[in-house]
């Protein structure tokens, strides 16, 4: 058992008797369902790196043909390949987990407007994800435009 924050769930004024310190959930952070939650948090690091890597690519594109070619060659390095395999897995993991939550996170109404059924929202999210991936991927691969 590990201690939670010493003031977790503490009242503003202490009670009349001494209390034992709060214990954090026994399986947190790596046991049971918490493992997926912890991994979800750490995808933050992957996304930070990805953001800066795309900035690097766009910057190279702005520097001219030679810089852009050099950038594309860099992606062939095993370290870049390994990172981007991990990154792809992370992005898919994030998408699946977030899309599971997204429908139930919509308020029951915004003004007079009610959201569509949750299953429709869920299906639409996946349709948009797959569709955008196909279209954007086709554009990048030279198959469109």
């Amino acid at each position, binding site marked *: 058992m590990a201690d939670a924050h010493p003031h977790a769930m503490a009242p503003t004024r202490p009670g009349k008797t001494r209390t034992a310190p709060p214990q954090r959930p026994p399986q947190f952070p790596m046991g049971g369902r918490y493992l997926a939650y912890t991994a979800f948090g750490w995808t933050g690091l992957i996304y*930070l790196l990805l953001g*800066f890597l*795309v*900035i690097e690519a766009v*910057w190279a594109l*702005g520097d001219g043909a030679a810089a852009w070619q050099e950038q*594309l060659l860099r*992606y062939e390095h095993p370290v870049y390949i390994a990172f981007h395999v991990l990154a792809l897995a992370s992005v898919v993991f994030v998408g699946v987990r977030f899309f599971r939550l997204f429908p139930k996170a919509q308020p029951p109404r915004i003004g007079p407007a009610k959201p569509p059924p949750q299953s429709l929202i869920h299906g639409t999210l996946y349709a948009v994800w797959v569709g955008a991936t196909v279209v954007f*991927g086709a554009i990048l691969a030279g198959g469109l435009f």
Partner: protein
Amino acid sequence: MKHLLLKIEPLIWLLFGQGILLGTILLTGWILVVNLGVPLGLISDDGLAFQRAHELGSSLVGRLVLAALCALPLWKGAHHMRHVSIDSGGAGRDAVVAPLLYGVAALGSLLAIAAVIRL
């Protein structure tokens, strides 16, 4: 600092939410083609030839998409790493960690805007 963080929290959450939603949707195709498909020789590199890439990237839509692709994941990343810090008992250091992380995301967003402007 804590009060300031609370004031901007809705904005951070919006950026974080779009970082997950749009960032994930856009990143999938980008990684599949640019970072894996082409380098591994599974997809021809003709699509990424400089002239074509520059022409598409420097269009208005291209600049907006590239800016989103660069910047939005940074906000998702920063916000999630803040949670990771807090989850590891870091509530006490949040007043330092949060501005640092959001500062990195903000700096990256400025770089992203600069990168697409100079295309």
